[in-house]
């Protein structure tokens, strides 16, 4: 199956639809869960960090007067820093020591803290995600009024949370992937079970088309496909019955022809035997009686030939015709056929000498006699017979220089009883000669090679019949000689 056809097949389309459905569902569920879980985790981390910072800041009060010394800044920063967080304390441009650079914080954060809010910002330090929480520390002035003075920033790593989220994401991907694989498997099984009857139907229909009318499907279950299978079986059965009926009728017709031919043969045998008497006596008989005797004799021969040809044809039809093969000098066989019928002077031959072939000499004689006889009767001289030899084939060409064959007649020349003019005038032949020649050619076989006889017209005028026989014909009923 080509790639394009596979892609448009029902199976592929079903499979794709299944996968698409599964991907969308898995991605939707996992994605939504992931986003929600991430938000919750971050929010919780943030809230707890804010609470923890503000709680710690409260424990620092009261602190000394303004302005605070550098030592006070360091002390506060030290108290606020813990295992997970790192604090920096800023007073009017001075800041506690430490690795934190104030430039990492956004101006919006600084402004919000300056305004007295508790604010936060997410940052990335190196490759580590973190959270910055900023708040103010209020100093009480000697006059008792509060003054916002210290900015406190606590930087807390979000690495544990990031890891939790990453774990979540990878497990979501894992579960999604597993679900997808499982879904594909299910889809394959489903399409298989749905499509198997369809495939079987296709195969059965193909077999039926090839001519195997006994093809039937096994009906499984009671679904729509089972119904289709039942319909198919009924159709095939009806077809088989009808074709069988037609074949029986044809066989009956053929048997009838064969029976009639055989029944005709016995009286004809008696008549034929005595025609010699009529022929001998006719010259001595007076006018009409003599003519009648000659006519009966002549027509008995014609009838005999017709019946013999009919019997020959019925033997081809029943498969009873077999070749009696012998290895012969082909040119000598052609010459013998011409000599036996007194045609040697009327036919130009161009025969490759010393060509030996294994064939049925009697059948070759029948074919050649028919072709040459036709050419002499219907064509115009010179009639020619040519012989070509190849390693596996021998080819005979029988041609004449007459008007050639009518293109409308050409497809029918080997039909039984086909007459070129529809008036069905009597000709010398039985009307079966070329049909028998054709069958005789096809009877010669050598494995895949089978003899053939074709009719055509030469470009330069005249009809030509080409007989092609396998050079070394074989036959199961080979009577080539006892060893």
């Amino acid at each position: 199956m080509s790639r394009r056809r596979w892609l448009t097949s029902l199976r592929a389309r079903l499979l794709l639809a299944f996968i698409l459905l599964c991907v969308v569902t898995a991605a939707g569920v996992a994605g939504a869960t992931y986003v929600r879980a991430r938000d919750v985790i971050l929010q919780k981390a943030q809230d707890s960090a804010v609470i923890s910072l503000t709680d710690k800041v409260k424990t620092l009060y009261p602190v000394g007067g303004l302005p605070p010394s550098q030592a006070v800044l360091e002390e506060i920063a030290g108290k606020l820093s813990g295992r997970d967080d790192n604090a920096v304390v800023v007073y009017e441009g001075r800041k506690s020591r430490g690795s934190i650079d104030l430039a990492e914080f956004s101006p919006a954060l600084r402004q919000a803290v300056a305004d007295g809010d508790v604010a936060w910002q997410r940052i990335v330090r190196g490759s580590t995600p973190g959270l910055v929480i900023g708040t103010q520390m209020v100093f009480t002035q000697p006059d008792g009024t509060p003054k916002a003075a210290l900015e406190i920033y606590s930087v807390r790593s979000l690495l544990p949370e990031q890891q939790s989220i990453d774990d979540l994401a990878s497990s979501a991907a894992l579960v999604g992937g597993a679900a997808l694989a499982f879904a594909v498997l299910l889809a394959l099984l489903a399409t298989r079970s749905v499509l198997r009857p369809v495939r079987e139907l296709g195969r059965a229909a193909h077999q039926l088309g090839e001519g195997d009318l006994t093809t039937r499907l096994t009906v499984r279950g009671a679904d729509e496909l089972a119904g289709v299978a039942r319909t198919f079986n009924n159709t095939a059965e009806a077809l088989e019955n009808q074709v069988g009926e037609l074949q029986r009728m044809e066989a009956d017709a053929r048997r009838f022809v064969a029976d009639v031919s055989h029944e005709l043969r016995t009286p004809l045998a008696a008549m034929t035997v005595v025609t010699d008497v009529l022929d001998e006596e006719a010259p001595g008989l007076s006018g009409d009686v003599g003519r009648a005797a000659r006519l009966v004799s002549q027509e008995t021969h014609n009838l005999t030939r017709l019946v013999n040809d009919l019997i020959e044809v019925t033997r081809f039809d029943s498969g009873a015709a077999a070749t009696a093969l012998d290895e012969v000098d082909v040119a000598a066989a052609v010459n013998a056929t011409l000599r036996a019928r007194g045609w040697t002077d009327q036919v130009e031959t161009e025969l490759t000498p010393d060509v030996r072939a294994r064939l049925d000499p009697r059948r070759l004689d029948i074919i050649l006699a028919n072709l040459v006889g036709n050419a002499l009767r219907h064509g115009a001289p010179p009639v020619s017979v040519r012989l070509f030899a190849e390693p596996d084939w021998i080819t005979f060409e029988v041609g004449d220089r007459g008007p050639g064959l009518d293109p409308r007649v050409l497809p029918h020349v080997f039909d039984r009883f086909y007459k070129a003019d529809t008036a069905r005038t009597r000709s010398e032949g039985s009307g079966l000669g070329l049909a028998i020649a054709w069958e005789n050619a096809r009877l010669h076989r050598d494995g895949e090679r089978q003899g053939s006889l074709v009719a055509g017209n030469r470009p330069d005028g005249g009809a030509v019949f080409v007989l092609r026989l396998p050079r070394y014909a074989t036959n199961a009923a080979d009577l080539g000689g006892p060893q």
Partner: protein
Amino acid sequence: MSHVLLIEDDPAVRDGLQMVLTRQGHTVDAVETGELGLEQLAAVTPDVVVLDLMLPGMDGFEVCRRIRADGDLPIIMLTARSDDMDVVAGLEAGADDYVVKPVLARVLEARIRAVLRRTGSAPRHPDKDQPDVERHGALTIDRGGLAVTKSGTPIGLAPTELRLLLELSGTPGRVQSRQHLLEVVWEHGYLGDSRLVDACVQRLRSKIEDDPAAPVYVQTVRGFGYRFGPL
């Protein structure tokens, strides 16, 4: 001229054949069954038997075998065209030749004459200086006396078998094609039925060879024909 026993069940064919053969100058005894034919043979000995294969009661093959068992009387079978296997079976039963019905009287007449000629004089040996009696291994062929013996024991050969052996042994070691043998022994045209030769060779071998499956005297040359020897 000659005495013909005609065994044919169909009255019209029988009457017709009897009429034309009698007109040709033969003496014809016509019977309608194989049993009657064999009875007739016990009383008189004809020169040739013309035997229809399809007979009621005892069929032609059986009649043929019985006549062969008793002697070397020439037998010509009458067969139907469609019964190709019958030809082979009939030849194996020992018939010398066959004609296909419907048959022209002159064709049957020619076959009768040909088969009768085989019972007559032998073909002249190509080499006239050769004596009439030749020895080939255990086989002694007397061309003058038309007798064949093997290790001193006479061998009964039907006329066609004898003529075939004489033809082949006339040129020992040379291959003769089936077509040639058909022309010289059976006097058929070039396109005779080569199965006549094959069947006759088989019958001949069964009589003269020690092991007909591994012939020494009449050897097959695949694709060409038959050869006498070399021993």
